[in-house]
């Protein structure tokens, strides 16, 4: 029986790998989910058959509750809340790993089983990563849900405090590895990891969430992977490593898209007061009415729409789709240019636009669309700011200097839908708004687009 289970685990692992492989294209992606589900069911059936299972009532009750909670989360959650849900599931995954590690530690100590260094090292990593990711993800979730302030929370000596705390936790971990019988250390160690998770995330601002979510994803995966080492289960190691590397790649992509390093994201507290004083003088901008905007769009032959987090906040994706349809019907070539860090998690904008039924071959990544801006008649920016700021290319003193941006300023005409002239989250003034070819469309994205739409059919009839 035990042998059979090993084979089941091998097949499950293969299915997990295939599942990720099929995510390379939207055409095969639906298959991914199926492969993942079959792999998971096989793994669960495998473990339940692999040994004489006691306490069925506990296990079944947990399965029941987990399913009862999971189904509504998946179906009720609006797509704009996906970043929060993702943060929450990082928290759940990390908690599961941390608790299994904790239970294993006490179980072995209870029966005076010697925990070898080879078990203790991964066990400490599992619980450390698990607990800190648990609270860290809850903090990220709070920020995304706007229960907690999105601005970085900072204080003097913050990094020093964090390093010191982490140092103590690491030292206690090493002590436990050397002498696992000192069970009194464990709760202190776990508590420090929980506190460290909170302190690590509170100084990070909302705009950096894509990187942080990806990083927490990686930690949760590595925690599961460490559990595989503790329990000697290679399937856990594989699945955890896949998740860990996925999170790592995504966070590297996010960092590159902001031209920043990991350390800078984690300890830099971006968007601090350094620029808030900035240019205080009021410079003139040109604004336009929905009617003028409609006539410009109507006359254009190509339009690139650049969405950002503001689109998600205003829930404007369906109105944008209507605009997309109306313009496409008029023979205008409409494309979407999406910056890797637009929104609050990797791929956030793509999901929102796909939800509004915009075909995915119209969604272009930054490097594929940038060469098209110079030939484009109108660039319409909806709720994006820093990712369109030409200062990133030219102004060495700008905090975002060197960040790859969408070359919106190269389009013949630029229109920006924005609530007011308040600078964006990072507090950086956007040169784009003061250019001669830029028209500011002041208002809520959803309302403004509806007004443009109202103007469009009238013109077609005339």
């Amino acid at each position: 029986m035990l042998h059979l289970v090993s084979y089941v685990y091998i097949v499950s692992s293969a299915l997990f790998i295939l599942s990720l492989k099929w995510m390379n294209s939207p055409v095969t992606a639906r298959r991914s989910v199926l492969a993942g589900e079959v792999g998971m069911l096989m793994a669960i059936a495998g473990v339940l058959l692999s040994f004489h299972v006691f306490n069925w009532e506990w296990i079944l009750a947990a399965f029941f509750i987990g399913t009862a909670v999971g189904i509504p989360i998946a179906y009720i959650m609006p797509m704009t809340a996906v970043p929060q849900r993702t943060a929450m599931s990082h928290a759940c995954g990390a908690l599961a790993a941390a608790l299994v590690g904790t239970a294993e530690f006490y179980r072995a100590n209870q029966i005076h089983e010697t925990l070898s260094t080879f078990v203790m090292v991964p066990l400490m990593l599992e619980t450390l990563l698990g607990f800190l990711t648990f609270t860290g993800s809850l903090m990220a979730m709070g920020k995304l849900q706007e229960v907690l302030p999105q601005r970085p929370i900072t204080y003097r000596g913050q990094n020093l405090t964090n390093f010191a705390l982490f140092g103590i936790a690491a030292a206690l971990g090493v002590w436990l590895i050397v002498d696992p019988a000192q069970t009194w250390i464990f709760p202190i160690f776990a508590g420090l990891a929980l506190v460290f998770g909170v302190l690590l995330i509170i100084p990070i601002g909302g705009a950096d969430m894509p990187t942080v979510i990806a990083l927490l994803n990686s930690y949760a995966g590595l925690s599961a992977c460490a559990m595989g080492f503790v329990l000697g289960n290679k399937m856990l190691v594989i699945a955890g490593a896949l998740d860990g590397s996925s999170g790592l790649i995504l966070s590297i992509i996010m960092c590159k898209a902001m031209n920043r390093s990991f350390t800078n994201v984690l300890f830099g507290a971006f968007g601090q007061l350094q620029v808030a004083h900035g240019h205080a003088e009021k410079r003139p901008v040109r604004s336009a009415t929905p009617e003028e905007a409609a006539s410009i769009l109507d006359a254009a032959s190509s339009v690139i729409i650049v969405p950002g987090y503001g689109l998600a906040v205003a829930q404007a994706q369906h109105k944008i789709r209507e605009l997309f349809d109306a313009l496409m019907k008029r023979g205008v070539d409409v494309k979407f240019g999406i910056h890797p860090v637009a929104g609050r998690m990797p791929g956030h904008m793509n999901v929102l636009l796909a939800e509004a039924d915009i075909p995915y071959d119209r969604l272009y990544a930054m490097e594929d669309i940038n060469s098209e801006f110079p030939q484009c008649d109108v660039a319409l920016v909806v709720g994006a700011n820093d990712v369109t700021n030409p200062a990133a290319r030219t102004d060495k003193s700008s905090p975002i200097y060197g960040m790859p941006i969408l070359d919106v300023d190269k389009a013949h005409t630029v229109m920006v839908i924005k609530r007011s002239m308040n600078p964006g989250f990072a507090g950086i003034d956007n040169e784009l708004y003061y250019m001669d070819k830029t028209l500011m469309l002041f208002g809520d994205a959803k309302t403004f687009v509806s007004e443009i739409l109202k103007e469009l059919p009238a013109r077609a009839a005339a």
Partner: protein
Amino acid sequence: MSDLEITLFVFMLATFLGLEVIRRVSPLLHTPLMSLTNAISAISVVGAIMITGAYGATMLSKVLGFIAITAAVTNIVSGYLITDRMLKMFKKPGGKK
């Protein structure tokens, strides 16, 4: 080779494989990718079952294991379902639904 060495080999290979496979994922699908890997990493449910269902499991093991299974199953169920829900939204090019 000891079991630990074999496991380390498996870890090393799985990490490199993961990096190569994920690198090829279209940026279009980064959000569903994250919810999918989340569901997959809830494989920790296997460890939680081993802890909870062990012979002579203490009350502590049972309670911690119970919470762990609940959290992992929540991730599995909501992770796969929401990934599928998102992927359904990616309409084929050209084809007007």
